[in-house]
């Protein structure tokens, strides 16, 4: 690195380094160093759900080469990974496992919703077994649009994640706070998927419904005509 670029980009803590020391001394913040290490070693979980997983594999393969970002180390175990790429349609049958995997990941952990399905249900949103967006259950950091997103789009999403990491500060991030981060309750496969956080609302909803066959989502303003 040249002298010019060292001073403004790394030395941004407000200290003026004397010119004779600029070749060997750099003053920066702990946050910067911390984040730099973190942003170049985001290990994704080897975790594919559907079509998007194929594009994720292609991103990791030779042509797009995820290794350029230090992200080629795909870990099959959630315990060793930093990033969960939710690559595909999230179904009701699968969401308990996804939440469980998310809980098993150590902090700091990031979640990327890859593709339309993981972001909001996508083309399959109306399906009876489809969760319309993984963010209904676990927090998402980056959404990548596309069906499926091309490898370029995924790479763009990963760079956005890096930018997000750059803005973190170790004094503020939640995993260095005193309080313990509670695990997300794992949904249960009942007559329909049950999110334990919604128990009260579910009881409410089940008690006031009149016709058992009618859908819950039937709007009050009955626009839906009979077939």
């Amino acid at each position: 690195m040249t002298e010019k670029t060292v001073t403004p980009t790394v030395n941004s803590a407000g200290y003026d380094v004397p010119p004779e020391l600029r070749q060997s001394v750099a003053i920066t913040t702990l946050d910067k160093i911390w984040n730099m290490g973190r942003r170049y070693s985001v290990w994704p979980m080897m975790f594919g759900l559907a079509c998007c997983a194929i594009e994720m594999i292609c991103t990791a393969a030779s042509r797009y080469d995820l290794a350029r970002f230090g992200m080629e180390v795909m870990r099959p175990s959630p315990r060793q990974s930093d990033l969960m790429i939710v690559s595909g349609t999230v179904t009701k049958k699968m969401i308990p496992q996804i939440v469980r995997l998310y809980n098993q990941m150590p902090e700091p952990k990031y979640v990327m919703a890859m593709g339309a399905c993981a972001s909001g249900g996508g083309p399959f949103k109306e399906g009876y077994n489809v969760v319309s967006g993984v963010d209904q259950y676990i927090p998402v950091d980056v959404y990548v649009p596309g069906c499926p997103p091309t490898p370029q789009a995924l790479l763009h999403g990963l760079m956005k994640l890096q930018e997000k990491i750059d803005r973190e500060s170790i004094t503020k991030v939640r995993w260095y706070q005193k309080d313990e981060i509670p695990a997300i309750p794992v949904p249960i496969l009942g007559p329909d998927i049950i999110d334990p956080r919604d128990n009260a609302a579910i009881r409410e909803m089940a008690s006031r419904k009149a016709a058992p066959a009618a859908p819950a989502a039937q709007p009050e303003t009955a626009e839906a005509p009979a077939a």
Partner: protein
Amino acid sequence: MSEQTPVKEAPANPPTELEKRFPGAVKRDERAGYEGHIVEVAKLHEVAAAIRDEMGYDFLSSVTAVDYYSEAPEGENFIEVVYHLYKSTGGGALVYRVQVPRDDAVVPSLVDLYPGADFQEREAWDLYGVKFEGHPDLRRILLWEGFAGHPMRKDWKEPYFEEDVKPFKNRWPEGQVYRIEDRNPVGKNVSYPQGFDPEGFQETDDPRMYESLERSSQDFVERIDTEQVVVNLGPQHPSTHGVFRMAVRMHGETIVGLKPVMGYLHRNHEQIGERNTWTMNMPFTDRLDYLSSMSNNFGYALAVEKLIGEKAAPPERAEYIRVIMAELTRISNHLWAIGFLLNDLGAFFTPALYAIEERELILDIFEATAGSRMMCNYFRFGGVARDLPEGILPKIKDLVTDRLPRKVEELDLYLSANELVRSRGEGVGVITPEEAIAFSAAGPVLRASGVPYDVRRADPYSIYDRFKFDVTVRQHGDVYDRYMIRIDEIYQSLSILRQALKDIPEGEIMNGKNPYQVRVPAGESYGRVEGPKGELGFYIVSTGKANPHRYHVRAPSFINLTILEKMCVGQKIADVVVNLGSIDIVLGEVDR
């Protein structure tokens, strides 16, 4: 288009062969647009056994249910179970069906005659609530035990239900978009039976599955008095090719029982397909077997074109483009399959990297032609969506005559004789030809077991009868042969491609205009193609409206999995992933 119905006699009165053989039990289906026969429910098993043993229809291709429901009391109200059968020596379909009342849908199971009906009957039970009497393990397969209702029935409405058919009228009421989840009290895609209390609810799916696993490994338990271990592989497992789960019961390292658990990617393809218009379904078929979207397009287009008839016959150039795209798809799929089979064998990612490199070149062609790498959405009823772009043909020619043969030979050279591949593959997961046919295995799995059955040859569609190619076949039925057959098929596909590229004419690519809506006459049709994974069938029923009444996919990956337990029992746990890899499943198609 080829005529696929040898049993469909002239519409005159003389009784058909089947009617003569089973007087009273079988009658011809008289409805317009329908083929085949209606069998008395009580006689189904007897008739099916005779059809298999006397007439030689040994390959049960598809079993599915159709719900004929009308709210009016005098309307038709029954569930129909449709069977499509073929001879493993080739030829057209034999169709028979049974009709049962909706509130008491009980049909004798055919699993003892055709073990390949196992998963399909479970699926019909799961989605339609048809009880198959005598089925050894009638559990839900795509959803879970305890799910409320049978969702494919026409009177079952999903939580996000808006209207019966698309396009929805109220997408923009008063010029304002609304999100359907805002109208749900929980804000999610859920609904519960009245009075349901979520507190302290216990799941019942897994216990029932373990019970069934224990039952299937019972005789082993009695003979040897040791403790057995149950291991779950998946749904999050790097070697299950997606969200597939296997519960394996082991004695030491030897497998005594295996139950596949699926449905983790069940995204209601068929139900959404019945809300969609005919054309709207095309992009959805891309997402079935997402490694070979062009083949899926092909199958669906064929099924619908068959129903529309001459009006939708694709012009010559379109037929050639279709074949070229389908065969390129086959190559790209097999490259992927080989790469990831090697992955499962322990050669982590290196062979896959080389295979993906070639696949990317094929995807480039798809991107140039259809606009998307994976989800091509390229076929239309009566042709293809757009013509080949300028300059793409030389590119394909280059790939097909030079680069791909070279690279496939390279893969073949380095992998096929490899000691590790051979010792992990030879004699592992052996399937005899009889078993393969009985279990309705299709595609490479069937042909690797010594059954030379290829839909392109056995029941030619499109213009496949013009090309010279060998139906690849291997004799041992083990993992190694299932690997080798894919290499063989790549060579055959390259040969077809070379012929097609030589002969491709200029001209139209669509029969008429590419319509926004198609009119499909009432009736049913079953279109099938030889997809890269095996026989891919689309069963559609039209009532003459803008939307399909029934839209069913006979997914080769799904049905090939029926044989997985048989393949694995008696083998070591390490062979399970290899066996699974050699079937080459794609979860989008397994779970739909």
